[in-house]
């Protein structure tokens, strides 16, 4: 199985590669359109800022490459956010993103003193149906999060997390999957999710 990890101007890409190695999969980290298109599975990871990363994807024509993929794709963190319709993480308050999912990305607005932003640490997810991405997980599973922006809840939502407000912990449409949490940093349960994705 050929796994491609999309290389672009976002951080944290190597931690996904390390997680792949731990579960015994050799992945290729690449920004090459052909290698990405030919892979059996594609992972679109990263930590970064939406406007800057979106600009990079367009300049390198990776936006078209990603949208045209037909094999299973897994977006992680900023990957999920960039797969949405738009993000509020921009100088003028809105940047158009890939539009694979219909959701928009908003910034958390703390409602009380106890809700800190960024949302940092381990939180539970509530899967909304029997999506195979979450096969074999216990009830109220914990995953590791670090983010200040979130995707709204809609028809493509396959799991929610409630922090300040309910938002999409995971999205799914056709061959595209995405998670806001970091499976590569979520211990054993994170590896369950990565293995479920690789088994698609």
């Amino acid at each position, binding site marked *: 199985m050929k796994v491609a990890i999309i290389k672009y101007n976002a951080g944290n890409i190597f931690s996904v590669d*390390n997680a792949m190695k731990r579960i015994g999969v050799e992945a290729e980290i690449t920004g090459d359109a052909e290698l990405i298109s030919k892979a059996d599975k594609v992972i679109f990871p990263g930590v970064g800022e939406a406007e800057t990363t979106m600009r990079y994807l367009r300049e390198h024509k990776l936006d078209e490459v990603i949208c045209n993929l037909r094999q299973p794709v897994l977006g992680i963190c900023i990957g999920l956010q960039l797969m949405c319709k738009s993000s509020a993480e921009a100088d003028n308050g809105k940047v158009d993103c890939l539009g694979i999912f219909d959701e928009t990305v908003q910034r958390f607005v703390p409602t009380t*003193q106890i809700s*800190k932003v960024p949302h*940092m*640490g*381990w939180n539970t997810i509530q899967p909304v149906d029997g999506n195979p991405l979450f096969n074999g997980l216990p009830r109220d599973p914990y995953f590791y999060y670090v983010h200040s922006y979130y995707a709204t809840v809609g028809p493509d939502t396959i799991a929610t997390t*409630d922090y300040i407000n309910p938002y999409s912990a995971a999205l799914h449409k056709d061959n595209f999957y995405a998670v806001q949490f970091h499976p590569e940093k979520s211990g054993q349960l994170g590896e369950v999710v990565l293995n479920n994705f690789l088994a698609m």
Partner: protein
Amino acid sequence: MLAKRIIPCLDIKNGQTVKGVNFVNIRNVGDPVELGAEYSRQGADELVFLDITASFEGRKTFVDLVKRIARNISIPFTVGGGIHEMKDVDTLLCAGADKVSINSAALRHPELITEVAKQFGSQVATVAIDARQDESGEWTCYLNGGRVPTERHLFEWAKEAQERGAGEILFTSMNHDGVKQGFANEALARLSSELSIPVIASGGAGAMEHFKEVFTTGKADAALAASIFHFHEIAIPDLKHYLAKEGIPMRIV
């Protein structure tokens, strides 16, 4: 529900764990990777590796160690100690660390926080503050592992660190550190209410009740401890079950 975090801290000298413990199921207690992996299996939510090496050779060993940790451990980890400039931050993040903890260098050059946050994002920038409370009640920040007092006070410095882009504050009370009589809950509660970023409490853990207090009275988001975990005084699974029973949101593995 967002869980409160339990974070063991490992002191590293020349690539080896200082004060390593004897867990029955690990062979080399001096190996930070084995010890860190064991803590991860027991349910630690994050790990902190603090480099207390002074030499250049020791530094290189630490960077190699960070690479091994990143390859072998599947929970987030922070590295600190000996970070003076952007180059150090860059080296450690490239080696695979999730966050860096900056202490003295941030007090000497506050613009370092701004630069780290701008280049790598706030989520990697943990600002560690060692402070001591004097008789008048004032909290003074210290440099160099608590050896050199500064002109800065805890609350205004923490606020500035947040404004400069720190993602978290790791506050160690020098009055409470090593005394094992509980955390500096009053100061922690004030920090937590004045800041909008997470606060990690450090210094004073001696009993399981102290962790309950630091999360309730102290309003901390995470609690860090070293010796009580290393010397088996408290086992992480026991601690987490106790806290969960007391109504503190905990991730139980």
